[in-house]
């Protein structure tokens, strides 16, 4: 059948390349920022490219990147989770107690995943079943869990832990922190989920056009439960990294963590409105966030300024995305 003169005949190879290039465009921008910022920091301080410094950046980005994977899914559905910081606190307490009691690595991992998963499930239930707005539900759990963290610690803190988690937290493999390897592994899992599994694509559909998604028979509640629970489990893994890294669990552990994660996801190109974004972008965003934090330290700018920097970056990134979109789709 002769093709109508309005289109040319497609060639699969060319099309795939075009398709991939399209996706790459936002991620490429983030990589560019990372590189440019790195060059700037090296030029000004001369200490950025030192191997120990780079390892530090990777180390600091690992936890953010891990949770950002889940947060990406959450934001893709049009929701948000501001309670990840408090979830980290509770999960760290659980892991800390278990570790202090002498549990091995395997059981500790189970503790992290279970506690994190349960906390995430609570959020998912409130939002998926209870119909509560994500920001409200997670604002509530943010505060409830922070109080819970304090309560579980009984006004003390956990320290002097056995070295079970230290390798995970601080160890290196091939010159790269082990927690970064873990984050990489999780990234691969989530890339697989979001590109090969139906559930992963359904999440995009929900954020893209909820009416069409319902019509297509997609189970909204199941998807919502999944994204929040997955986020919780990822927080559990990060708790292991955190406890391994610092060896201490206090009542303010994890406080403010949610800002880093949300900043990472937003900078990585995920749209706040839902339906658009990639987990790879968020991981790159996490690297950028860690790099910025590192930059503040190298430049001797007070660590207190982190909130300002992250907050302003979020606003600029979302604003730029919105204005760009307005140009494309009238």
């Amino acid at each position, binding site marked *: 059948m002769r093709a109508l003169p309005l289109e040319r005949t497609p060639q699969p190879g060319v099309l795939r390349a075009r398709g991939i290039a399209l996706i790459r465009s936002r991620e490429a921008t983030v990589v560019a920022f990372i590189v440019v910022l790195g060059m700037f920091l090296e030029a000004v301080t001369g200490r950025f490219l030192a191997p120990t410094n780079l390892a530090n950046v990777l180390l600091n980005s690992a936890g953010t990147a891990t949770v950002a994977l889940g947060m990406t899914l959450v934001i893709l559905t049009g929701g948000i989770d501001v309670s990840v910081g408090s979830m980290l606190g509770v999960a760290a307490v659980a892991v800390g107690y278990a570790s202090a009691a002498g549990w091995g690595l395997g059981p500790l991992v189970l503790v992290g995943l279970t506690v994190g998963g349960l906390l995430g499930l609570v959020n998912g239930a409130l939002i998926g079943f*209870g119909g509560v707005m994500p*920001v409200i539900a997670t604002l*509530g759990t943010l505060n409830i869990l922070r109080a819970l963290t304090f*309560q579980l610690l009984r006004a003390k803190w956990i320290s002097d832990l056995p070295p079970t988690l230290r390798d995970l937290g601080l160890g290196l493999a091939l010159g790269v922190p082990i927690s970064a390897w873990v984050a990489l592994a999780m990234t691969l899992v989530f890339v697989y989920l979001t590109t090969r599994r139906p559930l992963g694509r359904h999440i995009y559909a929900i954020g893209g056009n909820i009416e069409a998604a319902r019509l297509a028979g997609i189970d909204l509640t199941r998807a919502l439960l999944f994204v929040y629970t997955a986020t919780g489990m990822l927080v559990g893994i990060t708790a292991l990294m955190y406890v391994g890294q610092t060896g201490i669990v206090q009542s303010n552990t994890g406080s403010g963590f949610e800002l880093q994660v949300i900043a990472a996801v937003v900078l990585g190109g995920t749209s706040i409105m839902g339906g658009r974004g990639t987990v790879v972008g968020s991981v790159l965003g996490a690297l950028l966030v860690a790099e910025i934090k590192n930059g503040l330290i190298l430049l001797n700018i007070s660590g*207190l300024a982190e909130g300002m920097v*992250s907050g*302003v970056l979020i*606003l600029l990134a*979302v604003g730029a995305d*919105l204005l760009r979109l307005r140009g494309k789709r009238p």
Partner: protein
Amino acid sequence: MNSFLRFIATDRPRFLILVLALAFVVFALTTAEFATLYNVFNMTQYGVEIGLLALGETLVIISGGGSIDLSVGSMLSLSGVFMGLLTMRVGINVWLAALLGILSGGLLGAINALFVTRIGIPALIVTLGTLYAYASAALVLTNTVPISGLPEHLFVLGQSKVLGVPFQVLMIFIPVALVLHVALRRTIFGRNLHAVGTNEVAARFAAINVGAVRFWVFTLAGLLAGLAAVVMTSRVASARPDAGVGYELQAITIAVLGGTSILGGEGTVLGTILGVLVITVLSNGLQLASINPIWQLGAVGIVLVVTVLLNQWLARRGLRLA
């Protein structure tokens, strides 16, 4: 059960008075110093600050379209810091500094407003960003050290009495609440606000300037935060950079508890005031029972989640909020 639900739905104020009375009784019975005049006095002092924030939050949420302000606590911190710095480092007269502090709150709110109305970023994200940005700015400006040594004549605002009632209650909160009540119920601005929150499209077609309405509510929330900062600074005799931490949770909870619909279009000053009373009693009771302050926020978190779940449940049964 159904008639009870209907009662909650249709007569929110009376329901809240019931809850308030219940909470009061419970705490009076279980905690020694609760039901004393001295304590009630203290409670109302504390309640003024959170009350002003909650009123601002109420206005923002009424404007609808997903409007919410997560930065009210940080605005309080930062404008308090501005006031403290102006007085102690720049040497301005403390009353002038207080006025500038209030105005700076308005400026912070206006920044929120501009991002929401001009650039079109959802209020949720804007105020999430400014929540952290303003809080961080307060910490940086003070290097985490509270500003103290303020002139004593400032303390009349937050620590003195008029006719046996705390100054800020009688001379600040009640007048402000009255003005806002009248504004919301009786003025053109209040009408426009209800219209925008009820049906934004219809408001536009009715020739109402939707952008201007939203701009003003966010700015007003900032002004109220600034005012609350001045009162708090006067009461605790210092400007703490972390003064407002957790206040956004309380403000939102109070607004929602008081009957403000998260979807917009509905909310009253009376409901919010009752909400303030309930939350203040709760927080104070917990404090006196020697429960760690962190549980005050935890308890408020529980109240928020339960309230919203309740509202959802009511909505599903077709019962409107009143």
